[in-house]
């Protein structure tokens, strides 16, 4: 191809734990285009980008920039060749100002000292040049997510990036911020930049991109002109079938309240309020969704519900089955019938080097029927593990395989299997389908609905609006540690409307949010 700016040929990447992330992937980028890479979570998009940015070395394959074969061994190599990346999780120092972050690693000097005013000037100049308004002297920790992203983009541009890689840039943005970002990307394109846009949101891809490379299961499914493919076709190529995120929900009548949170307030060690006046209840057979832009108190709320209240300055109360869990430890709380699917399956949800079976019994190895005298009952454990692996369709070589060898979706299924199979009264599901493929996500959704039919009370915290609107019986929106909206018919709420509450532009009055407490 004559005008290929960057080409990747036959890229294969196998991680040391045996996960094959990319398999013989071809990718080519033309100058001045916005090129989407679409695919489900786990399709290998991020890995391909990491290879393009020199963060990972491919196990096999070649990379060409303007026809020259290159070896990108570190991000510095990539930056030197005009490639910049905006990560999904921002790489900024929160306590530094925007200007300080901008020049990190390439600080202007005055004698031996750091020339702060030059950094500010440089930031302002770059911001003006690209028409991205930021305040150079603001501290990054005080910025909104959208602003932080702008800083990240500027950071890449000031380092001379011609190719800009954005890894799921809209995942953390509200619909309004997303539109602003698209406007900025169009401008950059007009100025001659080439943009790689990673996403699995088809509408966005349609809205802004010129061409699209579709990935599935680590392979490339082909490159298309965006005008020549419909959303349906893209989604079929992405998942291999048409996606319907619609579920038949049993009509259940909610029973007695299982969880009652009353005027919960939590402050951090500096006295900053992380949660304030949070009140809601969850009843048997009810799924209560909690939506909100990340970092608006959801993490603290989940911590409070799962044993993180000890030694924290908190007011109000959290009652599970009528018991105050304020001073309870995790074992006590689990004893009340609480299960918890944690947000981070690697850090909390599993022990990577341990077997699937070991990971499945971690919350019930104490129980009488798992033990025989002083010993664990090996045959019972093996039988339990085998039946859970089967029931949850965990793709593995057997229950003795280390869980760390599994793909994200299968690992998550093990976590969900463990938490759902102990007959829980209350399930806290925190981002239960983050980073798993659509098949596994649907499976997990069905399991949650099954539990709901079995009268389990469920708290669903999720950044996936589709998921939360579809599954929840009622919905809370959190903004800056408070509940700002309550909906008792989530499926009737549009994503745009939700966005306004998530962004803090709208908020309901006390009377409306007070309906979140619904005792019988």
């Amino acid at each position: 191809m004559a005008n290929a700016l960057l080409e990747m040929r036959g890229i294969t990447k196998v991680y040391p734990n045996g996960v094959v992330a990319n398999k013989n992937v071809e990718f080519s980028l033309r100058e001045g285009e916005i090129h989407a890479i679409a695919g489900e979570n786990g399709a290998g998009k991020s890995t391909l980008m990491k290879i393009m940015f020199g963060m990972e070395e491919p196990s096999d394959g070649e990379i060409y920039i303007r026809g020259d074969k290159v070896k990108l061994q570190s991000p510095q190599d990539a930056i030197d060749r005009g490639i910049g990346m905006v990560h999904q999780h921002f790489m900024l120092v929160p306590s530094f100002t925007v200007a300080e972050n901008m020049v990190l690693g390439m600080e202007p000097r005055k004698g031996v000292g750091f020339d702060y005013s030059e950094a500010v000037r440089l930031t302002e100049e770059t911001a003006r040049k690209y028409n991205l308004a930021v305040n150079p002297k603001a501290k990054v920790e005080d910025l909104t997510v959208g602003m932080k992203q702008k800083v990240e983009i500027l950071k890449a541009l000031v380092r001379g990036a011609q190719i800009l890689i954005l890894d799921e840039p809209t995942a953390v943005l509200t619909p309004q911020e997303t539109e602003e970002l698209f406007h900025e990307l169009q401008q950059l394109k007009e100025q001659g930049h080439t943009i790689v846009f990673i996403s699995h949101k088809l509408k966005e891809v349609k809205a802004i991109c010129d061409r699209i490379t579709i990935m599935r299961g680590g392979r490339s499914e082909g490159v298309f002109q965006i005008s020549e493919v419909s959303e349906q076709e893209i989604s079929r190529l992405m998942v291999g079938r048409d996606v319907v995120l619609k579920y038949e929900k049993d009509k259940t009548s909610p029973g007695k309240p299982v969880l009652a949170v009353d005027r919960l307030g939590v402050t951090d060690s500096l006295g900053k309020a992380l949660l304030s006046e949070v009140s809601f209840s969850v009843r048997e057979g009810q799924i209560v969704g909690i939506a909100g832009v990340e970092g608006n108190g959801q993490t603290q709320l989940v911590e409070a519900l799962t044993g993180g209240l000890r030694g924290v300055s908190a007011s109000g109360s959290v009652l599970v089955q009528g018991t105050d869990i304020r001073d309870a430890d995790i074992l006590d709380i689990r004893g009340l019938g609480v299960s918890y699917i944690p947000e981070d399956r690697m850090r909390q949800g599993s022990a990577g080097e341990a077997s699937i079976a070991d990971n499945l019994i971690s919350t019930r190895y104490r129980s009488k029927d798992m033990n025989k005298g002083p010993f664990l009952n090996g045959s019972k454990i093996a039988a339990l593990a085998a039946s859970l692996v089967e029931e949850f369709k965990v793709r593995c070589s057997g229950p003795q395989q280390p869980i760390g060898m599994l793909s994200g979706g299968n690992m998550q299924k093990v976590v969900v299997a463990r938490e759902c199979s102990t007959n829980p009264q209350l399930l806290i599901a925190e981002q239960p389908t983050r980073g798993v493929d659509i098949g596994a996500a649907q499976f997990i959704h069905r399991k949650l609905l099954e539990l709901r039919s079995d009268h389990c009370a469920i708290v669903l915290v999720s950044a996936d609006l589709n998921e939360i609107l579809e599954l929840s019986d009622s919905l809370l929106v959190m903004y800056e540690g408070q509940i700002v909206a309550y909906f008792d018919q989530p499926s009737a709420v549009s994503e745009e409307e939700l966005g306004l509450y998530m962004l803090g532009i709208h908020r309901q009055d006390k009377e409306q949010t007070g309906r979140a407490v619904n005792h019988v």
Partner: protein
Amino acid sequence: MFKVKYFEAIRTAAVIVIALIIAFLIISLVSDQPVKTIGIFLLEPLSTKGHIGNVIEMAIPLMFTGLAVSLLFRANMFNLGAEGIFYFSGVVASVLAIHLSLGGWLHPLAAIAAGSIAGALLSAIPGILKAKWNANELVTSLMFNNILFGVGLYLLNYHLRDAKAFANVSFKFEKTAQLSKLFAGTRIHTGLIIVLVLIVLAHLFLYRTKWGYELRMTGANREFARYSGMKTAKVIILVHLIAGFIAGMGGSVEVLGMYSRFQWTSLPGYGLDGALVAMLAKNNPLSVIASALFLAYIRIGADLMARLSDVPSEMISIIQAVIILLISAEQFLKFWKNRMLLKEAKEA
């Protein structure tokens, strides 16, 4: 074709082979008769009953400390305190061996029990510091080695020392306190049976009991263990108690099995060797037997080489250093593993 899952075993074997090759190279450079010297190094330890006895005698303390360190490493505790505990428990057992008079097998039993319990209690201190205040166990345990050595040496000098002896050694142990020999013509003592039983028990504990399960999960991912409802601080203190008990028993058994007086005026080094044994055994109790025997074998081989040829036994520390370096170097042979992975992935 080799599979990825055998990678760790193959890697350990490769490390040992490389270390031996380096040893041979060095011997070839240093020795006037390299072939004969290598022959001595490799074959002499197995040539006579007495030499085989030497290997097993040396393997006994290595198994004790290797087992203790394996359990600690398994819980992800990088604690090297087995050294000081091994020494100090030896002192404690010696006190009872000298001053107590008890009939028959009760005497060594009492002395070993005292040494083991002392070991457990001393080991608990870094454990508690770690569990409660997250004090780095490596630092505290290494400092404890010095403290225990100092106190032990003080006890030897001022309370146990036999003025009539011509060296800095303790009074003689009571005959009743010493462990009996198992085989005539060797010094292999009943400590061998004790340590083998202990290893089997540790294996059952680690893989078959709920406490062992808690230990393994805490070691694999402490955050996960806590999230599952385990009291990880208790687990950490427990593993320190057990490891201290085993290391303490090792010191006591060694003193009563091999000596008639307490005579260590420096740390004997078995604790740190235990870390090497544990690494070679991949922290598996049963594998500790083989890896302790291997280490004892090359040690005795080096000793015999020093006696019978012109190469000094210090050469052995080079082999050990290479083994530790390569085993702990995670990247070693990674490229090969990656190639295997790529191949398997392409075939799939």
